[in-house]
């Protein structure tokens, strides 16, 4: 009955998978002494096509494919575009900054692409087992990527920590899935949504929700499930940290939106206070810890925890207002965070000679453009108007105010004042005059790929800050499609772009 062939429903994922497989094959067939750098271009091209394909999916009516396991809607397209964009920036960044002679470059690019497959699938899956598989695909790729710099001590440490804690969290999620299956007898999200409120065994449903939330909150590195974040970001190569701090989080937030707004909307009175607490904890713990950091990447890791908190504030918003705000914040956060990591990769270099905040002293005197870009992204992270960060916070907290959580908004905005302290510390150190005894670090190598990556991030941050209308509209359509599940009969519905 479905007029859209199933394959079109997973077109971006399919393209990304083919790209990854192609990279692996070419890598294996190339002579060992040949540079693998061009595989990165292959990956970037594949990701671009996938991005374009996801936009193309807007032409189909909202609906599910593959026996109701995956869905395409404005919601999935929004997150697909976001994830593919982040992956593209990370790939371009790696192209110019990975050392020419580093080992396993082919696998590196392939893993990034496979990770993207998992993340994209995570946002479009509407069957809990597929959700679980997607989460595993993306997690396993990122575990390996986190340990890519295996010659240093920190790389393997990061990978093992991430793997152990990550597996634990995935187990929680799986347990939750099992319980909800026990309570309702199905793993399809839309059916669960109908059956969960009338299930015989309500405690089972509650336990399932709690376990699933734990698993997902771990993935978005919200406090108190955040302890892995700083170590992993510090140990991972900076381009990977750029990816890790944005794309998997975006996907996990999409899943969280699906779980709380689609599966358990009737339990709002339970999860809303829970997420309120987690949001406040994440912001406060993240910011307070970030204030004390001397290492730039650890500082940004704690700031990422705080941003997860700001984003969770949007969940206090009711219905599509909250969803739209969360989706918008995810986009804004991704653009500026991937940007700031990109700039730091260039400044610090792949082997991270400059890792402390004090090492950045006088940056604006040494390389004015990089210094200005760093300050620009930091300003956006602070949330100064006319940057994406501002509108992200603005929508998130106005959703909270709209949902009646005024205290949350005040705590959040005071927290962003706290956050300004450490972002600004870095920005101001970069703006200070360099001290005389400081050795001049080597000039970073800036190639066209990196320029493209950073320009993409800058442009997105600016567009989101000055003319957020289009993205906001997309976020609202996404919210709308998440709120209105497709008809079970799968009759050709309205076009995906809903009226609002």
């Amino acid at each position, binding site marked *: 009955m479905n007029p859209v062939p199933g394959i079109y429903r997973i077109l971006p994922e399919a393209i990304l998978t083919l790209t990854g497989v192609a990279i692996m094959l070419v890598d294996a067939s190339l002579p060992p002494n040949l540079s693998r750098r061009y595989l990165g271009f292959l990956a970037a091209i594949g990701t671009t096509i996938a991005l374009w394909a996801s936009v193309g999916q807007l032409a189909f009516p909202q609906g599910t494919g593959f026996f109701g396991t995956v869905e395409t809607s404005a919601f999935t397209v929004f997150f697909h575009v976001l994830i593919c964009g982040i992956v593209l920036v990370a790939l371009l960044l790696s192209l110019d900054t990975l050392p020419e002679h580093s080992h396993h470059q082919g696998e590196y690019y392939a893993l990034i692409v496979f990770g993207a497959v998992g993340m994209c699938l995570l946002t479009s899956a509407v069957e809990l087992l597929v959700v679980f598989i997607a989460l595993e695909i993306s997690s396993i790729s990122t575990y390996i990527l986190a340990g890519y710099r295996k010659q240093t001590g920190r790389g393997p440490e990061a990978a093992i920590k991430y793997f152990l804690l990550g597996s634990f969290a995935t187990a929680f999620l799986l347990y939750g899935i099992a319980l909800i299956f026990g309570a309702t007898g199905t793993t399809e999200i839309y059916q669960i949504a109908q059956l969960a409120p009338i299930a015989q065994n309500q405690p089972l449903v509650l336990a399932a929700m709690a376990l699933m939330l734990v698993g997902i909150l771990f993935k978005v590195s919200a406090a108190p499930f955040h302890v892995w974040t700083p170590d992993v970001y510090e140990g991972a190569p900076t381009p990977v940290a750029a990816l890790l701090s944005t794309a998997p989080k975006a996907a996990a937030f999409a899943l969280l939106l699906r779980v709380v707004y689609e599966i358990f909307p009737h339990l709002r009175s339970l999860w809303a206070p829970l997420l309120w607490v987690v949001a406040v904890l994440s912001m406060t713990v993240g910011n307070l810890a970030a204030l004390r950091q001397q290492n730039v990447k650890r500082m940004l890791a704690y700031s990422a925890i705080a941003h997860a908190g700001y984003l969770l504030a949007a969940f206090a918003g009711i219905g599509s207002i909250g969803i739209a705000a969360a989706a918008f914040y995810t986009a804004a956060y991704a653009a500026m965070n991937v940007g700031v990591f990109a700039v730091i990769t260039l400044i610090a270099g792949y082997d991270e000679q400059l890792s402390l905040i004090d090492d950045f002293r006088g940056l604006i005197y040494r390389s004015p453009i990089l210094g200005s870009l760093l300050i620009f992204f930091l300003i956006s992270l602070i949330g100064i108007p006319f940057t994406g960060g501002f509108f992200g916070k603005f929508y998130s907290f106005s959703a909270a105010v709209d949902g009646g959580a005024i205290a949350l908004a005040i705590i959040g905005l005071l927290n962003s*004042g706290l956050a*300004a302290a450490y972002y600004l510390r870095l920005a101001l150190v970069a703006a200070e005059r360099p001290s005389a005894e400081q050795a001049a670090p080597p000039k970073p190598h800036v190639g066209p790929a990196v320029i493209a990556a950073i320009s993409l991030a800058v442009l997105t941050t600016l567009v989101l800050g000055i*003319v957020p209308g289009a993205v906001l*509209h997309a976020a609202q359509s996404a919210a709308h499609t998440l709120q209105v599940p497709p008809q079970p009969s799968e009759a050709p519905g309205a076009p995906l772009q809903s009226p609002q």
Partner: protein
Amino acid sequence: MRAFDPIILTLILLVPLAGAVLVALLPDRDKLPNWIALGATLVTFLLTLHLPAHFVAGQSGFQFEVKLPWIESPAIFYHVGIDGLSLWLVVLVGLLAPIGVVASWNAIQTRRKVFYSLFLVQQTAMVGVFVSLDLMLYYGFWELSLVPMAILIAMYGRKEGSKAALKFFLFTFIPSAPLLVAILWLYARTHTFNFSELQYQAASGVLPAGALFWVALAFLFAFAVKVPVFPLHGWLADTYNEAPVALAMVVAGKLGLYSMLRFHVGLFPAQARAMAPILIVLAVIGVLYGACLALVQRDFWRLMAFAALSHLSLIVLAIYGLTLTGWSGAVYQILSHGVVDGALFLLLGALELRYATSAIASYGGLAAKLPQAATCFVIATLAMIGLPMLSGFIGEFVILSSTFTAVSRSAAIAAALGVILGAVYMLSLVQRLFYGPESALTHSNPHGDLHDGELAVLTPLVVLMLVMGIAPSLWLNTIQTGVHPPPPIKSTVILSGGRRATAAEGPAFVLSGAQPQTSRAPSLRLLSAARVGDHESQPTTTPEAQR
């Protein structure tokens, strides 16, 4: 020329921004960034002069208004316009910008591109604050104005730049968090960011009074830090001490005071009335405290900082006296303070550039070596301490007399004491810098008098101080148009609505609708000193004003 009217404000906002982009793109060769910045600021200044030239003095409401949709949901508009309140403040920003460029001409030698582009962005942000009529747009410019300032203080700080910058930024950024929440709450309730609509809704009693109190408090808190008002002035001295001269000129006062008038007293008259007694007390403390601390400073930047605290507190006193006369005096005093402070900063900056120190004790006997600088400094000092015929007198006199007659005699007397102390510390500063025996430093460093560039900007400032002291009505007429506010139609709606007494007595304009709207106020004498909200106006004639 009227064809410019709809786009003039946009032009004033965009020209400095375009200048900033140009400075950033062109190479840092010779004095190229300086010239571009000077050109951009001069063009901006000329554009701002278009405003008073075509401003219709008697007309209430906003002029040169532009309202374009910016973001659909939430409904944020690019909505700018000016009235008598903001008119001269915009011109003042325009005037001080080229002066700031000249003051930085020799002082800033490194990274000129960064300095001038950020300086120009700062101009846009400041003008933006004064012209925005959409609360969200206003908030945007308000926050934006912090960034260039903080970065420049960190880059060009004298000793501990980044520490001072951090202090400045946090002090002003953190209070804007409650401000944003308050704005969002207003939007959640009224679905508009439009200033006039919000003013109407706040006055009409639709919004719950208890919540409105907190909203007004959040607004006030943000503004009070920015001014700063007495216990919140922690950032001021360090910022004055570290900031480059061009930025120290603009950092304190104007934005916060204007915001108080427009967005606190103007938006929440009833709540402002409730908070007024506390603010009057704080302002009086600020006047005296600032003056006392200024007396004992050894560094002239810190002295200027506490002097500023004292003078700005006087303006706060005028604003929360809630008299129409006081408000006119407040706006006039903001203008005068901007001009006088600008001149003093320029001169002190010139001294520091020549002798590389800001310790007052190192100076002495400069009058013989720098006669022109000494003359200008003395005139500016006299203007600052309120000598009749100079600009500072008018504002101080109006403020003190309206406080005395309509608010509180003891407050007026205490504030007058602060003004007298002001004369003491300023004159002793003049004495220690320019007169007395020549110090070792001034003796060993022969430096020339003011150069042509400095003279070229100081002369108009000195002339302006005189003109503002002699013919205040040139400014007061238009200022009163802004202070006696909005269209009477709305006030009749409120009156006929039969709201409770709290709603009806609060808004300032309820009364002003009943008052005869004179197209131009003939002279200072006729200004009503009535307390706003009293149902009588008591015209007061004061002998001093007839001079």
